């Protein structure tokens, strides 16, 4: 393709190609300092291309494609090309990755152990991970937790965190630099937060999980212990490749829920959430 960039994020080598220059320039900017692929074969390919030939110039619209494919991925305006690249990378990992069990979780590490946070969009898992990283935890990722199939360790996938709507202000208030910010996307306003240098330089350092939280933002504070069976079922739904991994995925997930305590928590605001996480982490 006319424009492209190939980079490594944790265990994944990506190649992103685009008909337009702008999405690749934005991607290079956001991921400056990440290892680039030289004379290496990328694991996954993302393509950004016009859905119809004239859509390259006329109301340019970015379709998202690649090695693996979903029928109903809607195209985005060119101004949101960076989001298209990010969504493309997520999609390829979600549909194509088999070397780890993938869970929709954010992950941060402290003292060599990992805190996993799972939840739907809006639960606060990205925001909490970002705020914890600003408070000194090591950021492993805000989108996918890569669970090793052999020993259950969590491998970092430190993509830029994608913060939605109020989360942008919350992270800025805590001293985080957020940018670029895209307004009017299908997911509302999205701001990208670039992980600290240690998160990038240590992107191959895995660590075992210690605690799993299911946060719910905007609720009265509560803490409920979850049974391993319930955790198991919820994580099968939070995994993009549990089914395709077959028995290997079952074994990895079973080990996780049997060895890592899981709690469902509610928290009214970020400050309360951070305090609660610190308290539960110390007690775990």
């Amino acid at each position, binding site marked *: 393709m006319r424009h492209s960039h190939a980079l490594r994020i944790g265990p994944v080598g990506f190649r992103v190609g685009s008909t337009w220059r702008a999405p690749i320039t934005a991607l290079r900017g956001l991921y400056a300092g990440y290892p680039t692929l030289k004379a290496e074969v*990328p694991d996954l390919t993302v393509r950004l291309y016009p859905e119809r030939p004239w859509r390259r110039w006329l109301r340019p619209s970015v379709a998202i494609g690649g090695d693996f494919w979903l029928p109903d991925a809607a195209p985005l305006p060119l101004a949101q090309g960076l989001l298209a690249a990010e969504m493309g990378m997520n999609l390829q990992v979600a549909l194509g990755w088999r070397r780890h069990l993938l869970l929709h979780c954010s992950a941060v590490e402290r003292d060599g152990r990992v805190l996993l946070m799972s939840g739907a969009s809006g639960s606060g898992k990205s925001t909490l991970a970002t705020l914890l990283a600003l408070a000194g935890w090591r950021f492993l990722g805000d989108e996918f937790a890569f669970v090793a199939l052999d020993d259950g360790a969590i491998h970092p996938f430190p993509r830029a965190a994608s913060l939605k709507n109020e989360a942008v202000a919350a992270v800025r208030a805590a001293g985080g630099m957020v940018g670029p910010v895209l307004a009017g996307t299908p997911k509302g306003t999205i701001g990208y937060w670039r992980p600290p240098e240690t998160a990038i330089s240590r992107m191959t350092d895995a660590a075992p999980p210690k605690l799993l939280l299911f946060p719910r933002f905007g609720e009265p504070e509560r803490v409920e212990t979850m049974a391993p069976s319930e955790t198991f079922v919820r994580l099968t739904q939070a995994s993009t490749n549990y089914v395709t991994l077959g028995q290997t995925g079952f074994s990895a997930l079973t080990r996780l829920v049997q060895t890592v305590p899981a709690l469902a928590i509610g928290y009214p605001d970020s400050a309360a959430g951070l305090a609660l996480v610190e308290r539960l982490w110390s007690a775990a």
Partner: protein
Amino acid sequence: MSHAARLLVAALRDPTSVATLGADDWTALLTAARAERLIGTLAHRLDTRAVPPGVARILADAAEGAAQERRAALWEAEMARRALAPLGVPVVLLKGTAFVAAGLDAGQGRSIGDLDILVPRADLPAVEAALLDAGWEWVKDDAYDDAYYRRWMHELPPLIHRDRDRMIDVHHTILPPTARPTPDAAALLADAVPLGNGLSILSPADMIVHAAVHLFGDGDLAGGLRNLWDIDRLLREYDGTDFWAALAARAGHHQLRREVGRAVRLAHDLYATPIPPNWRVRRGADALYRRRLVARDGWGRQPYPFTRLGFYVRSHWLRMPPAMLARHLWVKARRAR
């Protein structure tokens, strides 16, 4: 031929051809193989100890993915067998599931999506009812599509299982009744080869005939390299003195001599399939088909939009008379907007 497609065909035909590839060629080859749904096959063909470590990891993923698809396909066939066993009707597995169920070379590393089965047309209502009863549901809720399938197609509208999320295509023959060739569905069923568990597969000659129909009749020849690879493997496995005469006779019986001949020649052309001299009668249009089959670039894209459109129209031409084709494409085009 695009460079990536050339690499892919060469790697499948002669696995040692990859020995000299650099990173860019590997990237193009693997991307094209994924796009053509041939990466599992490639992983099975290549000696992964003789490739760069990054490539070996990707091929190992592909091999595991194919093994999982094989397991899921066989399980799905077993689920259909259990649902249909009480009816006592013959059930013939088709395409990928048939290849892996019978342990054929064509099944090695093959990607398998839907379950395709063939049953007698007279038993369709009972089969449909039994499948719905066992948890399969309609995929298409569009009235035109549903009516179209039931009136004009060689299969029921696709069904999907509500728990396992897997599709089943129930065929009663191998070409739509609207197509000019009329394959003998009763003969397909009568000569099917039992697997011993209540399911069957097509006879060797019929399997090639069906693979040729599948290659030329489905959509715009998309996935053609994979379908042609099936044909190469089947021909090599069934090769023998009596086989070619039986294939010619069978293709004639199903009124598909031209399609089978072309499929055999293309397999010989691209994959060096050994074929008898009297099958090597070249036809002018072969070059056009060849061009379409190898249109896949190193980013997984398909250039030549006009060639593709031509083949899309042509595949429908094979399926239905002109006036009906015009009406069908009109409805599809209006909906696409």
